[in-house]
């Protein structure tokens, strides 16, 4: 059999292109950055279930790429997951696990458990040794009660009554540490989560725009998209702009007449069908 040489099978990732990228960088090429979510994401357990919160800014380096992105992802009707880190990674990994949970639900005929979602996520992330840059706050209510977990990109997890992740996590955690207590009511929980996210929005550059909240209780999930909008846009003029003639100074005028290229031929045969 002629053709290419058979390379020995390599498991896992193929890093050949890294050499090419290093060479290009040395020659002056600026590599494109990837879309990180900057982010403040939080979660807490209250008396009837779990409240998750997230900001809505997605950044690409110093630029805001998406002013109102959705960081709270659907996993199951009773389980939602906030994602920080690389936006593509969080989207892909939560979609994949959500699909797997759906298949599992069909096979078992039961509601999905939070611990199932957690194990599927952490096994996947561990297998990719931290290259899948997804830091998640996973929360939900199942037959064993309300649960809240954090998942780190390398695959470790924590189980906590309240948690924050992302670049704004310190700002948000300060709010939680001073005001969290067991047995919060729904309104208190939502308010605490919103305050924590707002702390992240105003004190962290990587977080901003609006507050998304998701409340999960036994049998009911409420996704409050844009629950608070603390950063309304003020546009320059609601009436629009008007530029009347004479406002702009004319420095010079040059008129180029366009030559007429079309020649109409009189007579001639009609086109055949």
């Amino acid at each position, binding site marked *: 059999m002629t053709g290419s040489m058979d390379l020995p099978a390599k498991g896992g990732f193929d890093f050949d292109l890294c050499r090419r990228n290093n060479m290009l960088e040395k020659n002056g090429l600026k590599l494109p950055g990837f879309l990180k979510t900057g982010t403040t994401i939080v979660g807490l357990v209250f008396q009837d279930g779990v409240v998750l919160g997230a900001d809505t800014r997605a950044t690409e380096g110093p630029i805001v790429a998406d002013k109102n992105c959705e960081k709270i992802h659907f996993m199951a009707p009773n389980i939602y997951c906030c994602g920080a880190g690389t936006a593509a990674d969080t989207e892909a990994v939560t*979609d*994949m696990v959500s*699909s797997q949970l*759906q*298949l599992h639900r*069909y*096979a078992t005929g039961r509601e999905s458990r939070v611990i199932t979602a957690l194990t599927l996520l952490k096994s996947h992330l561990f297998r990719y040794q931290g290259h899948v840059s997804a830091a998640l706050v996973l929360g939900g209510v199942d037959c064993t009660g309300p649960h809240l977990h954090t998942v780190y990109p390398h695959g470790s997890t924590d189980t906590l009554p309240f948690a924050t992740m992302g670049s704004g996590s310190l700002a948000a955690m300060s709010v939680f540490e001073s005001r969290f207590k067991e047995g919060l009511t729904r309104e208190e929980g939502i308010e605490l989560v919103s305050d924590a996210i707002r702390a992240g929005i105003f004190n962290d550059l990587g977080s901003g725009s609006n507050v998304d909240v998701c409340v999960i209780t036994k049998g009911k999930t409420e996704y409050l998209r844009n629950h608070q909008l603390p950063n309304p846009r003020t546009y320059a003029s609601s009436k629009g702009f008007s530029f009347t003639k004479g406002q702009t100074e004319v420095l010079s005028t040059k008129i180029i007449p366009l030559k007429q290229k079309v020649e109409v031929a009189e007579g001639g045969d009609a086109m055949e069908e």
Partner: protein
Amino acid sequence: MGDSQYSFSLTTFRSQLSLSLSLSLSAETYRQDDFKWVSVPCSPSGKLVQIEHALTAVGSGQTSLGIKASNGVVIATEKKLPSILVDETSVQKIQALTPNIGVVYSGMGPDFRVLVRKSRKQAQQYYLLYKETIPVTQLVRETAAVMQEFTQSGGVRPFGVSLLIAGYDDNGPQLYQVDPSGSYFSWKASAMGKNVSNAKTFLEKRYTEDMELDDAIHTAILTLKEGYEGQISSNNIEIGIIRSDREFRVLSPAEIKDFLEEVE
């Protein structure tokens, strides 16, 4: 098809060819001698013998039927258990493939389970790829493609089931039948299994274009009753419905009881 466990080299194929054509298969089980290259060569008449055998397996399975109404679809089947000791709540012949598509079968139960698993996975993959819930026709097409693969690969046999797939999507209520050969048809009403000819005649007489779902359920029960040996009850039939709310569900025995009482 990647998951064939038996791969034979071409040299053994020739010597085994004549043997495989003369294999006679009973309707209940496919008696496969070890490692026979049971591929599906065309016989001189142009028929694929293996598929004929698979259809026989279907034809001796328990009757199942489906009716497409103007505002929904109903599928139903007999649930005759081999003994009164079997726990009938553990047997589920009608399964959901997606929230808006359900399926019932006639033929071999284990083959059905494999197909259900594959179809569910395909529906999920379709969603991951297109971020659109899979339309009924697409799922039918992919399931049929799987069944056809098994008629043209080495070391496998065709599935011994015919499926009735019922769904409700943007194209309205739909009912499809998929055969072991991989061919599929859209039906207004259809039946499969032991009592197929009587059931189809009955359905032909009773079916009307503008039937509503509740009428269709009554008709389905009556059709099952026609060919049922013994006393029909809410524990020995299974009914699945999908209305314009696009939620496929299997009726509980209590609900079936209500419909049965209405019919009588």
